[in-house]
C-alpha cells in the first residue's frame, strides 16, 4: 500500500507539473519562463517594489 501511495504521489506531481506547465505556456509568459518559474528560479515580484537596500 505504501508503494502504491508513493507511486500515485509521484504521478500526481508529474500530472500537476504538466498541467501547470501547459497553463503557463499558453496563458502566462511561455514555456521557458514557466519552467524556470516552476524550478523556483523565476523573476521575484517582490523585487519590483524598488527594494534596493
Amino acid at each position, binding site marked *: 500500500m505504501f508503494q502504491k*501511495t508513493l507511486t500515485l504521489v509521484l504521478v500526481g506531481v*508529474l500530472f500537476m507539473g504538466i498541467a501547470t506547465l501547459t*497553463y503557463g505556456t499558453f496563458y502566462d509568459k511561455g514555456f521557458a519562463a*514557466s519552467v524556470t518559474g516552476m524550478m523556483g528560479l523565476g523573476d521575484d515580484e517582490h523585487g519590483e517594489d524598488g527594494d534596493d537596500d
Partner: protein
Amino acid sequence: MTKLRLPKAFELLLVWHGLLVGSYTIAYLTAEGAPVLHQFAGYSVLGLLAVRLTAALIAGVRPPWALPLPKASMWKNFGRKLAAGHFSALLGRTPFAPLSGLVILGTLVLVTLSGLAADWWEWEDLHEGLAESSLAVVLIHIAIVSFAPLLKRLNASRADAAATALPRNA
C-alpha cells in the same frame, strides 16, 4: 484480455492524495517567482480540498472518505500496547497517522483561504507565514506515515540476512 473495472473508493482517495501533493508541491515551488502559476496551483489545491470536504460531508463516518479522525479506542489500544512494552505497536497503524492527516487538512484550508484573501487584501504576510509552517506539518506527516513501512522493511531485510547467514555458521 484484461477486464477494465471501476476504481474503488480507496483508489480514488489515493488519486486525490496524489493530485493534492502535486498541486501543493507546484504551489510551493512557484511561490517566489511565478505568481500566475502559483495561483493556478493554489486554486487547484483549493478545489481539491473542496472536493475532499464535500465527499467527507456526504460519506459521514463511512471510510475511506470520512475525515481521518483518530478514534478514542485507537488511542487506548495504542497506549495500552506501549505501556505493556509492546513496541511492535509502532509497526502498525498508529493514531498519529490520521491525526497528522487531519492537521494537514486544517492547515491547508487556512493556507489556501489566506491565499485567496491575499488576492484582494494585503494578506500576503499571513499567507506566507501559514504556507511556511504548512511545510513543517507536511514533513511531520511524511515522517509519521513512512516510519512504520520503513521499519518493517528494515526488520525484514535483517531477518533475511540472518536466515542466509545461518546455514554458513551451522
